[in-house]
């Protein structure tokens, strides 16, 4: 087959597509937090996301350098810029968003194993004040007192 001599004979800037794809892969890896993936997978995921985002960034920088610095060899200036700009959204999710999700207070003063937790009384969903002592007591409708209470502090449903 004869080589295609009709168009630009410069090389395609393929690494721009690689960077673009890696940026989206990095952002989409967040799916492991939504599908209730196994705990080790979830613990590893943030670092994989950072790593893939880093590779995406490197690929896009190389692509931009090739498109503008070596435009005699590589074509696709416009395409490279468009891909790099669109990739900013997934890159933002995979870098800033990824770091932000890990920006949790240290809570050094929180109760720890072996320590007694502070007593409290708060309103339940019907507005009734409920203390920790109430929670540990036998239920009013009969039955034994619970052996333990699992206190789950959560961010809120808003």
């Amino acid at each position, binding site marked *: 087959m004869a080589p295609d001599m009709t168009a630009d004979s410069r090389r395609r800037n393929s690494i721009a597509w690689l960077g673009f794809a890696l940026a989206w892969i990095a952002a989409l890896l*967040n799916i492991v*937090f939504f599908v*209730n993936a196994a*705990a080790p997978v*979830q*613990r590893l995921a*943030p670092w994989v996301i950072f790593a893939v985002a880093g590779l995406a960034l490197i690929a896009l920088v190389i692509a931009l350098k090739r498109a503008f610095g070596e435009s005699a060899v590589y074509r696709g200036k416009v395409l490279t810029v468009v891909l790099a700009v669109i990739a900013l959204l997934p890159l933002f999710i995979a870098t800033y968003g990824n770091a932000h*999700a*890990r920006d*949790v*207070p240290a*809570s*050094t*003063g*929180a*109760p*720890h*194993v*072996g*320590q*007694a*937790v*502070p*007593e*409290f009384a*708060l*309103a*339940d*969903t*019907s*507005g009734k004040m*409920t203390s*920790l002592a109430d*929670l*540990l007591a036998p239920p009013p409708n009969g039955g034994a*007192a*619970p*052996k*333990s*209470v*699992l*206190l*789950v*502090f*959560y*961010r*809120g*449903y*808003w």
Partner: protein
Amino acid sequence: MRPVAVSVDPPDVSRDFASKAGLTFTILSDPDSAVIRRYDLLHPKGGPDDHDISRPAEFLIDSNRVVKWENFTEDIRIRAKADAMLAIARETTR
């Protein structure tokens, strides 16, 4: 084991949430985050509109209010799994 959830959500928000999700366990409201502060779990401006909220944290406590197991996530996307916590509760307080 008795599960109890605590957040800054007001009771009506928690009530809607519980009825939509079909939750029957106790959900407590700490809108001023007084208890959340006392437990040093405050995440300042962690919520929408720079709202102070609770960081995620789980404690299994015995009948003397003593912590038998704790979990402080370093990533708000990673939470303790319900089945894992049930297994720990079964093991810890037989």
